[in-house]
């Protein structure tokens, strides 16, 4: 069976490349199938998880209603438990036995990298929104992956630059002691130094932690004006909570380097007021974002994070590309995705580069004081729009071979 399937796949691919052929004939088995692979119950389930599944479902429903495609669209979802091996196996199973065409969300870098590789081997597309590390579009990039909402390069650019410009020149880092934390610290420190600031030191805490008071005391003793939190999720939440308890804030200010609106929501504005953070999406930015987010809220009872909004945006863009390419063959769809600018509530004139990076504006947000927040989820002032060209790794610095072509 296998060689024959392979042969027919190659044949289908060859046919797909013929533009004059009737379109619906080249959608494999008449169905485009999306697999949402995410963390359904672990650390990242609030920022991706069930919300990612719902956002994908909304994108599919809206696409069918608006674009009236002549192919069927289906969706499956699974919990990857943030484990690379589970993700790779699930991706393989989906592609081989369930004919999944594209895999969405992929929160945590290790799972994204594992799935990207499997999907690329089997000529399927990975739509990465949840994971953030830059290797996805650099040393480990491939031609069947897009990276949508944010990355660890784009986050510190906005936050660190703005904070230094506002006079926060001396920095101290509290860093999660693993690859992600180290790279976030390094990226941020580079921006701080480039903007004229100084790094006084850093302390690395075991991951995951729960008591951060010792590390906060070290940060306090350093006398730095700004304490950069190069960690994520519950580690960030507990650091912020305890900084307030020990009277560190507001004397010294905190900069969350990877923070989602779900973190701010669970900490409350008392603990987070005044913090700067960078985000790819804020629900209350304009009429379009509000309209979509309210629909999402009606289903999930929470406002979307940038990952969940990104899931909708990328899935819709993918389906549009399938429709206009007239095939679900990965390379042809990727070409369409790169050709077509992204214009929706998530991004304006977004562009998918050869390395898979979707370049779009990022937003520097400052968390509101409790007195400034007028209604539920009214959490951010958008202080600055960071143009896509500044927010993401410049093509010249990219280490992705696809960019050099």
């Amino acid at each position, binding site marked *: 069976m296998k060689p024959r399937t392979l042969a027919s796949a190659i044949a289908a691919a060859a046919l797909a490349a013929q533009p004059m052929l009737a379109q619906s004939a080249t959608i494999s088995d008449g169905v485009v199938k999306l697999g949402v692979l995410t963390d359904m*119950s*672990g*650390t*990242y*389930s*609030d920022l991706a998880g069930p919300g990612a599944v719902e956002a994908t479902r909304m994108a599919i429903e809206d696409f069918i209603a608006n674009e009236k495609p002549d192919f069927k669209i289906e969706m499956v979802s699974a919990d990857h438990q943030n484990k690379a091996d589970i993700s790779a196996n699930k991706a393989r199973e989906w592609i081989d036995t369930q004919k999944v065409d594209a895999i969405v969300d992929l929160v945590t870098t290790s799972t994204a990298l594992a799935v990207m590789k499997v999907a690329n081997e089997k000529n399927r597309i990975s739509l990465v929104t949840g994971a953030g590390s830059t290797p996805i579009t650099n040393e480990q990039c491939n031609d069947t992956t897009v990276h949508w909402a944010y990355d660890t390069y784009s986050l510190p650019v906005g936050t660190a630059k703005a904070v230094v410009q506002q006079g926060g020149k001396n920095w101290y880092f509290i860093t999660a*002691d693993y690859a992600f934390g180290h790279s976030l610290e390094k990226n941020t420190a580079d921006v701080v130094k480039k903007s004229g600031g100084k790094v006084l030191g850093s*302390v*690395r*805490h*075991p991951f*995951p*932690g*729960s*008591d951060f*008071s*010792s*590390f906060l*005391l*070290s940060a306090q*003793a350093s006398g730095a004006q700004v304490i950069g939190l190069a960690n994520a*999720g*519950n580690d960030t*939440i*507990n650091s912020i*909570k*305890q900084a307030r*308890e*020990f*009277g560190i804030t507001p004397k010294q200010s905190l900069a969350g380097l990877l923070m989602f609106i*779900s*973190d701010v*929501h*669970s*900490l*409350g504005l*008392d*603990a987070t007021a005044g913090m700067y953070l960078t985000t790819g999406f804020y629900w209350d930015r304009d009429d379009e974002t509000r309209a979509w987010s309210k629909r999402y809220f009606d289903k999930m009872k929470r406002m979307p994070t940038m990952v969940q909004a990104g899931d909708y945006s990328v899935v819709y863009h993918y389906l549009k590309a399938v429709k206009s390419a007239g095939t679900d063959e990965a390379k042809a769809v990727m070409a369409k995705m790169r050709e077509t600018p992204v214009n929706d509530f998530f991004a304006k004139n977004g562009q998918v580069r050869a390395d898979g990076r979707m370049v779009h504006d990022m937003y520097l947000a400052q968390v509101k004081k409790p007195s400034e927040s007028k209604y539920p989820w009214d959490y951010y002032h958008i202080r600055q729009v960071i143009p896509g060209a500044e927010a993401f790794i410049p093509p010249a610095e990219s280490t992705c071979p696809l960019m050099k072509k």
Partner: protein
Amino acid sequence: MDIFGIPIQALMGQLLIGLINGSFYAILSLGLAIIFGLLNIINFSHGALYMMGAFGAWIGLTYLGINYWVALVAVPVVVGIFGMIIERTMLKHLYRLDHLYGLLLTFGLALIIEGLFRYRFGISGESYPVPELLSGGFNLGFMFLPKYRAWVIAVSLVVCFGSWYIIERTKLGSYLRAGTENPQLLQAFGINVPLMITLTYGFGVALAAFAGVLAAPVFQVNPVMGSNLIIVVFAVVVIGGMGSIMGSIVTGLGLGLVEGLTRVFYPEASAVVIFVIMGIVLLLRPAGLFGRER
């Protein structure tokens, strides 16, 4: 003045923080020690019950308007009763079997309880405010000590040594200790041993929930807060000597201090230092520092 290149102020601050964490370790390991001493059950659901205590406080405040002080008494009682139901319906069937069965059952329970909370409340958890009376702090010169943390040290010392006194120095305590040695003989003297066992388990569980309420204003209240802590607490119990009451209290506080010092000199190792000590203690004194060989 510096000690090994660290200013003495910074060192004092870190030691004090170590003592605060040690207080949590002490209350939790005390509960485990009491349960192991009398029931011979390695209570792996202790972390989940601690988490239930913290969530109990949050639920009470958010939905029922119960303040911190009431929660500090009411939540341990409620969770303690929940524990007694577990003991009556499940654990009591396991006493004659190997330790391993109790461990597996309580571990399974912990996973189920955590899963349910995760399903209902999500993973990011909820924030519990510091009670009005204890907000703010003292400036000790070398550090800013939040009033709430000072309260944690004080109240846990009282609770720990109070429990120690009851068990080691009162008549009720003597029954408990007798039950540990020889339950059949104690029953022959007309003591209702099964009831005593149920109440003891309930008390151990209530201690876990008490620690949970104490922790609620300090840590983010989330479904996995217990599983992050429980392994360390087990190490504390092993180092102190399984079932030794005084051992668990002293070791809990002591290891908090050791951990605090590690965070000054080599923060990366602060998560493993307790396990290194556990390894050394097991090699040199397999029954633990305060345990007796049986």
